[in-house]
């Protein structure tokens, strides 16, 4: 087990290096940061000088090596756009995105699994049809449109909840949270639903299809034959067996939640990393883009590791050590 984890960590470093390299080659195409940093009166000579000072004229390899060396010391430099420490900016924005991702993932799981189980057990009930229709409608429209429709319905028409931003934030010193106040929740609910709707549908559909499959397998039939109650069969045996794909997908979806948070955060002006990243892309703020990509890559690598470990915990048939080549 220890060897497995060690191997994965070495691989993770490789992954992170690759990500930084790809990210770096990408930056060269996105645009010129200098135009975004100065006003319209700055002369071409001054612009050229800034390029030189930023090291933008150095070979890519040199720029890349410089970046990796600093990143290893948690130094991502300062943002071109607002001259603040990128590490500090990320630290400021991180809790906002994490709380949003957490609540929307929780929403997706807590709504998706029960709906999926119910639809799997009672495929012909009218409630199942309702679940399916509602969840399908939710994924039939682009995220930004769903967000804006929610804003239109709740804050604008009904005067409920908040249309933008992260309000009622409590600063704990090392973390800022919106969980502790009424206002915090009022501004968290709409973006979480917007972001989680797609995942909820995916999870519901997966659980449903897996439940239906598992319920027809022999070992469930045996369990029934052994005289176990429906409840024990459904939740003790069947649901447990649907969990592999659900874990895979949920693990993967945390990644896509963070990616899609870019759009949700833009619609709701949620002060998270996604919004900061999009603005960085638009203004070609390379230090922020680089730090964001690396952070996201780190998160993914960590999540993947956890998912792999959970596989082993849930399904002992998958052996780590004895993989045939």
């Amino acid at each position: 087990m220890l060897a497995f984890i060690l191997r994965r960590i070495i691989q993770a470093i490789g992954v992170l290096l690759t990500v930084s390299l790809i990210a770096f080659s990408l930056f060269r195409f996105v645009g010129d940061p200098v135009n975004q940093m100065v006003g319209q009166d700055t002369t071409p000579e001054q612009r050229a000088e800034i390029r030189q000072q930023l090291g933008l004229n150095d070979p890519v390899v040199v720029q890349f090596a410089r970046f990796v060396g600093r990143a290893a010391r948690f130094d991502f430099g300062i943002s071109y756009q607002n001259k603040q420490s990128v590490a500090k900016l990320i630290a400021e924005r991180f809790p906002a995105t994490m709380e949003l991702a957490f609540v929307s993932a929780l929403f997706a799981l807590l709504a998706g699994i029960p709906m999926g189980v119910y639809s799997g057990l009672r495929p012909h009930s009218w409630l199942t049809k309702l679940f399916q229709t509602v969840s399908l409608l939710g994924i039939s429209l682009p995220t930004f449109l769903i967000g804006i429709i929610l804003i239109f319905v709740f804050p604008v028409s009904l005067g409920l909840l908040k249309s933008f931003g992260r309000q009622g934030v409590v600063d704990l010193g090392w973390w800022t949270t919106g969980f502790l106040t009424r206002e915090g929740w009022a501004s968290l609910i709409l973006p979480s639903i917007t972001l989680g709707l797609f995942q909820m549908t995916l999870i519901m559909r997966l659980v449903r299809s897996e439940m239906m499959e598992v319920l027809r397998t022999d070992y469930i039939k045996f369990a029934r034959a052994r005289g176990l109650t429906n409840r024990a069969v459904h939740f003790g045996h069947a649901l447990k067996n649907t969990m592999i794909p659900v874990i895979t997908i949920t693990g993967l979806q945390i990644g896509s939640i963070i990616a899609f948070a870019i759009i949700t955060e833009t619609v709701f002006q949620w002060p998270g990393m996604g919004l900061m990243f999009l603005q960085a892309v638009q203004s070609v703020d390379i230090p922020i883009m680089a730090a964001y990509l690396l952070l996201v890559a780190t998160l993914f690598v960590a999540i993947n590791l956890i998912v792999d470990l959970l596989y082993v915990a849930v399904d002992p048939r998958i052996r780590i050590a004895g993989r045939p080549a």
Partner: protein
Amino acid sequence: MTTKRLLLSAGLALAIGAGIAGWNTAATAQAPQGQTLRYAFQGNLNTLDPYSLNETTTLALQGNAYEGLTRRDKDLSIIPGLAERWETLDNGLTWRFHLRRGIKFHGGEDFTAEDVVFSATRVRAATSDLRSRIDADVEVVAVDSHTVDFKLKRPNPILHYEWDTWYIMSKKWAEANSAVQPTAASATTPGFATLNANGTGPFRITQHQVGVRTVYQRNPAWWGKVEHNLAEIIFTPITSAPTRVAALLSGEVDVIDPVPLQDVARINASANARVMEGPELRTIFLQLDQRRDELVGSSVKGKNPFKDVRVRRAFYHAIDIEAIRRQVMRGAATPTALLISPLMYPEGGQVQRLPFDLAAANRLLDEAGYPRQGGPTGTRFEVTFDCPNDRYVNDGAICQAVTAMLARVGVKINPLFVPRAQYFAKVLATGGFNTSFYLLGWTPGSFDSWNVLHNLVRCRDDQATGGRGAFNLGGYCNQQVDALTDQILVEPDVAKRNQLIAQAYRIITDEASHIPLHQQALAWGVSKKVELVQRADNQFLFHWVVKQP
């Protein structure tokens, strides 16, 4: 809901772990008297350093905390600011400013002539983006503790035109916090003045989180006459236009800028908000590349059709500016014949736009030797059109409309409508002026025509410093206009100067150096509880705001 309770308790557990003593709510406590104004703008306030970015809204937001020697009034006329009065001596070679006494910075430092001299040095530092505020060869001398002389090498009647946004900083404060120079674009450590402000203005900035919120509180010691009733202002950027409108309609913010033009009617029909529209100083225009011998993005090879004045005039005639004003801009624009707003050059009425005339456009293109290929609806030639789609009011939509209008005279446009980062990287000097046809907006910082002629019209000199024609991206060049531009800078007689300016504008209109479109209108969404002053330079100053409880 159980989820919520679960999360609440989880959050509580976290909080207790962090130590209850460390709690402090980010929502600042209500000030004892006065109202809270909530203001949302489409962009971020990226820096509090008043010399780091020469951009309208940034300067306006800073201008609520900082002040210059002069100010501009509600009608943009220049009025005294930190200087009580000023006079010119030595035939205009010395400008003497008498400073107000008894003024303190927010940090408690006294305001003296030393601060002005310091600020004049700092604004001209290599890392400043506002170096054009004072020429490098101007000598700034403190005569006594409250008198400052500006000694010029040659007369400059418009020396102080941009000084309302040259904010005075405290020398002591800057030295104490190692902020003597503006943070360099290439800096590797964050600058103190970027995150903290210490001005003399009616409000002080108490909290600033880039891209999230900036909080201002009333400065009780302000020297000016208090016309507002605010205790606190919370500024938030809201990038997405529909969200911004929603926040106004739901009463979560009091002022939004800008309002998407199509939403004006909806906001005016709502119970709690209205739209304040007014003319803006920015001029939107098109220009064709007249410098290259062969265009970079066109089907015409071996020659440049835009060197032919007939083709440029044909393009001008093809633009139905009235339709753009009515349909694309929903009435919120003033068509213009000039590259400058009539508010800054009232004499501009003598110059007229080339009229919208499809027949004339077609005839000119035929004469210039670009007949329609293959029948009466055929294409004459193709050209790429560069356009930003997130910089000016409805810029993408304007460019689409222009594309359709030119299609009707047989010019096929290959649209390249991109976000501003990509756009400016391509068309500006750093991109090698890589454009054949583009749209740009310009506000002269000095509110004066010389700035326009110097930056947009005179022959572009890629070697020289000083920005000659640096934004003449199409490379129009006429020696006569250049000579006029030089005369305009030094001509002290206002009437004579205006004649010279008119002469220059007439020449460039005849030669269709540019195709001016319109001055876009300001559109601010304002809660019905709020009264404010909308200045034509799009600066929103809080000290003219009155909000009902």
